[in-house]
């Protein structure tokens, strides 16, 4: 799987977990509401709380999976030497990941491609005019 689509799946998964946590809270609220309704029904509470626990379980499992995947991908980057106290800040041993990631020149390469494409279009557009600019013979 390409890193691009991998990132996308991960983000979508995390979003789904996020959404389920909000559902979890509303399930808890429903379970508590069954207690106060008259007449209070034990079976209704049992099913609501069952749902709550099932959801909680699934969230826990998925979060564990995400943590595992992050660890496999070395995120945060493994800390070596004395950078231990910075662990957990996503610092990667005191290195500014942002500064490093921004050092490649993808933008420059793309810009260059666009410029040459634009130049080609311009030449194509003007090629009619350019014919007169070649060798000139007279006599």
């Amino acid at each position, binding site marked *: 799987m390409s890193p*691009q689509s991998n*990132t*996308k799946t991960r*983000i979508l998964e995390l*979003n789904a977990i*996020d*959404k389920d*946590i*909000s*559902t*979890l*809270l*509303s399930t*808890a*609220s*429903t379970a*508590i*509401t069954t*207690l*106060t309704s008259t007449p209070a029904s034990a079976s209704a509470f049992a099913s609501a709380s069952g749902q709550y626990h099932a959801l909680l379980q699934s969230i826990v499992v998925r979060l564990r999976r995400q943590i595992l995947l992050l660890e496999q991908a070395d995120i945060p980057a493994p800390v070596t030497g004395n950078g231990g106290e910075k662990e957990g*800040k*996503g*610092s990667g041993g005191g290195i*500014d*990941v*942002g*500064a490093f*990631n*921004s*050092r*490649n*020149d*993808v*933008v*420059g390469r*793309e*810009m*260059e491609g666009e*410029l*040459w494409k*634009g*130049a080609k279009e*311009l030449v194509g*557009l*003007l090629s009619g*005019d350019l014919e007169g*600019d*070649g*060798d*000139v*013979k*007279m*006599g």
Partner: protein
Amino acid sequence: MSSNQLLLSLKSWPEDDPELKSVSSLITRIQAQRGHFRDVDESILENEIREGKDTDPLFDDSPVEESGGGASNSALAAGEEPDRATQLKNAKAEIVALVGHALNEALFGLDYVSLLVSLQNPEAGSSSMSPELKKSVPVGSLGFDKVQRRADPGSVKEDLAISHAWKVEGLNSAADTLMGASKKLGDDVRKEARYWEQILAIREDGWVVTRMPNERRTLGVRFGFAESAAEYKNKGVGALRRGEDGDVVMDDVATTGSHGKAMLRVRVLENGEVKGSSVQSGNKCSGSVKDMIQRARNFIYEDELFFEITREARLMANYGVRTSEDAVTIDLGGGRSIVIDMAPLDDGDIVLDIHNPDSNLAQGVVTAFRILLSYNHRMSLRKRSKPPPPLTQRKIVPPALRMVAPITTHLLHHQHQLNLQNLLRHLIKVVKSAGMSTAFVTKPRHNCLKPVIKNVETAVEAFLERIESEATVKLPGGWKVEINMKTALGPPLYGTAYIIGTSHDGVSARLMGENRFTSSKEMEMYLFWCLERSIVNEVRYTNDKWEQIAQSNEMWSIDKSTRRIRISVDRTGLSIVTGTTGGKDDRVVWDGSDTGRTLQDLLNHPVG
């Protein structure tokens, strides 16, 4: 020797301990001796010196102390701290009072419990009673008993109902809180999902999404160029923050300069009048983040481009390049000039007017500038990949990029070549109208035309070299002139040079071979000269009644030596002056228009 004679000792003075006189040690000692420098001013110090007092003015006779007991309050009211000693004194008194109070309370408690205990266990109780208490009450005089209250069934029921209602209310409020939290979280999740969706879309568009340098918690997108000059290197990252409704917001990114100037504009001016202009396209109004990133990228590129152009142009004043605060002008001669400046984006979709050659030229120049900057970025990467130069004390200023120079070279060369072509066309027309045959062929820019572009670098390198054009002219009388014009803005040419080689039979003129001219005027004069001599030769070939006089441009008739003609060529055309000794001269001019009369006619049937 006078009494104030100097006694010099050759022994050096004992050196002071630098530690004793250093400011840092002085300050600590002064502070230890007399407290802070606060409120110390010249008058206080002078007073102190006058009175010879060794006391601290802050404590003894400062205005703070004179104001009496309210000193600390007034000092506080004035927004100042009371001095540390008073502060300490006050705090100490406060602590002592509080501790005394607490002790008193604790003793009261102990007395109460001891009195109670003394009923059951007089020994243990009385040992911890205070003497005061023992004096005022007898031991064991405080009794206690468990009170058994009969529950009122009504109130029990009420209590139960109340507690039930409280429980229900508590549960309900817990449920409500949970529901509220769930809704709030749900909203947040929706925004978050929206944010990430847009971030992913930006990423899929090919932008580099990264952490912001120096701001770890924020994501940013890189739209700048890694190989930009130092001035622009750190500008190219924009923070992607989450807006109120989850949309990605870029709020700290410049997409235009002052007055909305966002793009390089090239205009062709003729005598101060705009003849053509490049197009500033770009979706100006779109508010979407992707377009904004694109605009930010374009702007940073154009801004750097203009910066580098002005930097280079300042060094090129000797080639007719003028710079002002916000524009660079390249003078092409003949009233034509090219103006480079920054301009706002065009409204709407203005397309290039391809039928206006000057607009095409402007657009071509602007495209060339952009490609050259990207080429320079490539070169910068190549340079960085090599081992760095040795370290020196001097600050190394990066040399100006080569962008204006190659483009100016091209423009000037093109202009000079057009001038040459026009001149040759004119001469040919003139010669033909005089009834002789002549022709020319030019090969413009033959050293930089590459049929196949292999890669970007070789393509651009060909553009950076000096430019050469060739023209071969066949003149009458078997003369052949080869003109090789070269343009380079730098040593050894510093402009356009014309190398003109002539080959002929050597009868009408001895001069042959190569001549080098660095001004177009000289070149023109030489071509005129060539044409004069070649026409002399032509006359000699075709008409055996005429003979050249001493390799000049004059000829005389063999039959009648008093009759002479003079052949001269200038900008207006070919003029032949005929005359006889003692007579009136006649002048016939061929300026290219059809006169219905040839040179041969003139020679065979002289006027008058």
